[in-house]
């Protein structure tokens, strides 16, 4: 079953003659439970595409369907609510909320939705990421790797339709990167989570089931590992 369907996605900035085509007609389908890596050089449009899929930015043209819902029909509030329920984010710079401890950061999207976190499920994730002893710590009391683990837990906590990871190891050393990537893959498999990950690193991309290459705003290649 397709959890993500992108058709004719375009994102243009500016006007002629200074028009910048960040995305120039992208078609993409991602199946449920799959791990897809999107690779490309800097400026290829991969981050732009991720932002569109995650409802963080509005396309110039095209259609994006996540879990059967068309994002282009939604207003700002609807997108926000959709994000908290159906999309999990893992950012390059972790982006944890500094005034909340690790546990609170994890359950934040659920709490914002007025819901009650499934504590058993949360603790299962926490055990998988090995952060049981640091749940009361604030972000400035954690290393980069630890913060990224919490970010992954936050992305998984609401059981979203899709988890989007934007260069999740970009700010980490190689050893920590390996750990984090391993966690991403393992938790994805464990919970049947669909993951789309952006990376410029071909080696990292090999962890994924599918690798899509973007060049100049278009999909240049798509292959299965």
């Amino acid at each position: 079953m397709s959890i993500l369907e992108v058709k004719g996605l375009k994102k243009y900035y500016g006007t002629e003659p200074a028009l910048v085509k960040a995305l120039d007609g992208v078609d993409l389908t991602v199946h449920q439970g799959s791990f897809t890596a999107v690779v490309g050089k800097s400026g290829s449009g991969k981050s732009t595409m991720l932002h569109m899929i995650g409802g963080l930015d509005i396309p110039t043209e095209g259609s994006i369907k996540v879990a059967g819902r068309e994002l282009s029909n939604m207003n700002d509030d609807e997108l926000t609510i959709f994000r908290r329920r159906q999309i999990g984010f893992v950012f390059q710079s972790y982006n944890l909320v500094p005034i909340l401890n690790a546990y609170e950061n994890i359950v934040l999207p659920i709490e914002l939705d007025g819901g009650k976190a499934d504590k058993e499920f949360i603790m299962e994730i926490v055990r998988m990421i090995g952060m049981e002893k640091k749940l009361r710590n604030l972000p400035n009391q954690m290393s980069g790797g630890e913060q990224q683990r919490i970010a992954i837990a936050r992305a998984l906590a609401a059981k979203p339709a899709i988890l989007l990871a934007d260069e999740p190891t970009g700010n980490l050393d190689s050893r920590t990167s390996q750990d984090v990537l391993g966690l991403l893959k393992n938790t994805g498999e464990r919970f049947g989570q669909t993951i789309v990950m952006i990376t410029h690193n071909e080696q990292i991309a090999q962890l994924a089931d599918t690798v899509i290459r973007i060049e100049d705003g278009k999909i240049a290649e798509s292959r299965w590992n």
Partner: protein
Amino acid sequence: MGMDKNNNGGIVRRIADKSMKNNRARNFFTCLTIALSVALVLTFILYIFGSSKEKLRLQEDSPQVSYLDVTPEQAEAIKANSAVKWVGTEKKVGSSKVGNSRLTVFYQDDFYMDKDKIEYTGELPRGENEIMVPRDYLEQLGLDIHPGDAASLDLGDKTVREYKITAIAESPSKAKNSHKIFVSLPCALLMTGQSEETVDAIVNMQGAMDMDYDIAQESAAQIGGQAGVSEDQIKVNDVYFSQSNISKLTPGSIMTLALVALLILSAAGIVIHNIFYISVAGKVREYGQLRTIGMTRKQVRRMISREGRRLALCGIPFGLVLGGVMGYALVPGGWDFLNFAGAALVCSLLGIVFVGISVRKPGKIAAMTSPVEALGYTGYTGKEKASKELQRSLTPENLAALNLRRNRKKSILTMCSLVLAGILMGAITSFVVSYDPAAVVDNSYPDGDYQLQLSAESGYTNNDTSLLGRAKAYASLQAADTMGEDLREELEGVDGVTGVKPWHYLMIATDIFGEPEEMSINGFTEEDFELLKQMNYEGETSYQKLAETPGVIVEIEYNSNFEKNPVKVGDKFPVVCYNGKGEMIETDLPVLGTIRQKTWSSDNRKKGIQQKLPLSIMGSTLMMPVETMNEWAGMNTTYGYEIAVSPDKEAEVGKTLEELYGAEENMYLGSKREIKESREQEEFSMKVILYVLAAFLVIFGLINLMNTIMTNLFSRKRELGILQAVGMTKVQIRRMLSRETLSYVALSVFCAAAVGGALGYALVRVAFIMQLWVKYQYPWIPVLVYIVALCLMQWGMTRYGVKMLQKESLVDRMKEN
């Protein structure tokens, strides 16, 4: 270049200037705060200096000496004297009631007319029957007269004559039923029946402002002597010299000014400090980067200082213009360009200094930022290593509370300036609404709304205006029972009158201080005596014994002459007065008791008590039991009646009293309401300046709140972007931000309402003890206005700020700075 060389001021300047270009909101708020604070301090300085200058200017041009009944040659001699600044001549003809109006008739030369700033239409009177009449008097008479017309009028000397009205005075008469009629000199001589032409020379002496009364007397005598004028023709105005001391600035008023300036600049300084603090906190990574690439701490500090200085140089000129305009508007008569220039210089220097002080700490903070620290900076400066609870409530409201705690220093600083503004606003408006200078009139009218009393001030030509002459005139009115029982019954019979209370007064001449002067003896009752005994009384305590022989109780504190000429129980002093038969009484009156009313009043004020005194005691130096005074003088010494009226019939009663007694030659009708209205008008500009100060403080508070909201938003752009990315809606973000700023608003409101109100109460108590006319009232309206303004600002700016944030895309907001 050696390691010790760091000659790169230019790059620091350029970075500072570029930083300023990217911080327009901060620049605007800072400039506005500086401009407003400078404007306010300058306004205060110009108001205080201007008020003094205005009074001094009026004083400077006021005459101090009158040379009475001098010949034209003597007047010319006085004019030619180099010690004389200017001379005007006049001749008082007389004052009398004509119908319900009191007319005062006199002659003034053209020069003096000009000095008095009399505006008129037509030509000044010159010929024998020529006069100038005020337009409002003509309107009262219902006469349609133009300059040059003739009219038959009685000007108060009981003779109707045909006069040519050569001019109409356009300046309104100072009181409704009191008018000045200007006549020509020949007309004045005709009316007074004088054959020899004499005038009063009214003189302004050179350097009079720097003279005291004694020196002025000597100088006046010298001028008079040189013109052949005898000493008894010379009258020096002692009020002028006591007034000129009041008009000059005292150390007290300079200190008050300095205190106010300090308060204003401190309030502004806190706001500016806060603005820069938030600005620096939001650019920690940038300073870390600058430090990483090699900017020294000193260079970072200089950069921040330069930003502050540039903003000061931008805001100060606006402040000077605004302050100058307001200072002029408040006291146009006191405007002096040199004063303005001096005050502007002082305010500019103060502004630069205070801004420098305000940005110093933020500059230090920026300079102390280490590169490593900056990289990991999250804006969280909490001391806890980990939270106690696993999960706290994550509602927008609670997130707001957590945010306030994250940077306690910033929160406290913001609260400080809002709290200070609120407290000062509450205190100042408490004082303003409680200040009631018109309340002094209540003291002068303790038992009535109207006072009908004797008046012997009218008359023409033959009036004996000497001390004894006046005493005799009043005594003859009393002997004629002018204020007798018939009149009392008549007053009691007026519909709306609820009470009629007499007061007793006998005019005397005495040299209790070594020189003859006019005084009076006030009659008191047994009931009044019980009150007198509370006033640090010494002497006979039995009213009956007191009333047995003519003697007086003396108030020995209010009149400063008692310091050089003390009196005690048992002393005697000479008194001259007239009895009911018109005979002169010359006797020595014994002092039967003394009171210290000033001390008693002061002690009462310290306890918060203000006792209203009856007319028999208030302002009285010499007092005698009523029965004793009547017997001794051989007549009813009633001088006047206090008339209490029913509040809903006050105007009606006033009209009736005016109709019945307004035209009476020998009576004067006073109205409490009219005097109050006149006093309220006089104090109006003082109240305005205090309200302006309060308004400025409110504006400071609002600016600070606005700045806090906007910088709160824009310095947390990224964090708010993250929250939105993980699912916080705009409404939730607004709720969170609203709750944060509501905390500031709530505290400021509490401080204004409670702490400011309490401080205001204390201020009013102190003012009361210092004998200012105050009656405590809580400043409901200003406080409500403040609350509404803060709430509106908080609501509006939060919504506006969130809306402004949305203009940038979520992705851009989330990018690292």
